[in-house]
């Protein structure tokens, strides 16, 4: 989440400064909408993570919520960082700018501490157990 936030902030700053076609690119709808989508996914990630954290602190079983948070936040982070590079244009690909590092840093989060595939296994298993218990 922190990685994605850093990428979003960098993209937001860059878009406010970079001028093309007579205005800052942040004012162009394509870029504005992209930034909006990035922000929304980051907020969604944050709420999933904080929800799982609160459950854990309260001693409530939360393995599915934790898996959902990890799955969603890691995949959202890659998406956000990819868009951040896109907003930077060619400069986004250079090592002079931080966004390509954010993109690389984000990528591993879908793999370590349980791959996305394993997280889905956990979530599905809990869902099916809950379904059985209810019927």
């Amino acid at each position, binding site marked *: 989440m922190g*990685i994605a936030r850093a990428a979003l902030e960098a993209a937001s700053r860059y878009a406010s400064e970079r001028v093309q076609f007579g205005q800052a690119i942040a004012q162009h709808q394509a870029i504005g909408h992209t930034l909006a989508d990035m922000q929304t996914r980051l907020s969604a990630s944050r709420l999933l*993570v904080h929800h799982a*954290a609160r459950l854990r602190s309260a001693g409530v079983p939360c393995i599915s919520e934790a898996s959902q948070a990890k799955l969603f936040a890691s995949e959202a982070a890659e998406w956000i960082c990819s868009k951040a590079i896109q907003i930077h244009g060619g400069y986004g690909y250079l*090592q002079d700018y931080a966004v390509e*590092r954010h993109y690389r840093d984000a990528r591993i989060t879908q793999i*370590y501490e349980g791959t996305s595939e394993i997280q889905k296994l956990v979530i599905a298993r809990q869902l099916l157990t809950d379904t059985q218990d209810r019927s």
Partner: protein
Amino acid sequence: MQEAARSFAQKALAPHAGEWDKTGHLPDTVVRQMGDLGLLGLQVPSQWGGFKTDDLAYALCVEEVAAGCASSAVLMSVHSSVGCVPILKFGTSDQKQHWLPRMATGEVIGAFCLTEPQAGSQADALKTRAVRDGDAWVLNGAKQFVTNGARAGVAIVFAVTDPAAGKRASPPSWCRPTPLASRSADLSTRWASARRTPVPSRSSTVAFPPRTCWARRAKV
């Protein structure tokens, strides 16, 4: 707490993260600063010398550190969540007293050794063996992708005690002091996060007296 973490991350981490990424090296001074701020003790209760308030505070602080330097955040979260917490949950009182206060300050960094070259998502394909030898446990095997491996002072290691028991008996874990008996190879910085130090791809045999270890069957 979040503000302090943010301030630290933006002032001490963010300006240098690019350079650390290029050299593939996170300076020890960074770890010390994180320790001084209490950032390495957020999963250790005050009873054991730590600074835990709740998991939300921990999540907020990890996010702040990650926004400054992803590698520092990986070090912090591996050390806390799978270094400190297993000892807290499964260690004896003596072990908790021996390790947790020093881990909370960052004097000792924790690592987690589960994955092996042939056992990733399929964690029950572990080959590392643990055999009782008189008073000691002898561990023999190879681990892969050990975050904090080069700087850890303690590692949680998973090994098989009873291969005949099959999948249903999950392997116990050991809390062992390092240095890990290994050659460490630096991975390319394509892994942009904290440098992973693979514990050897050849088997190594290390013996540990029981007072430094505990064996506990993990629940399947």
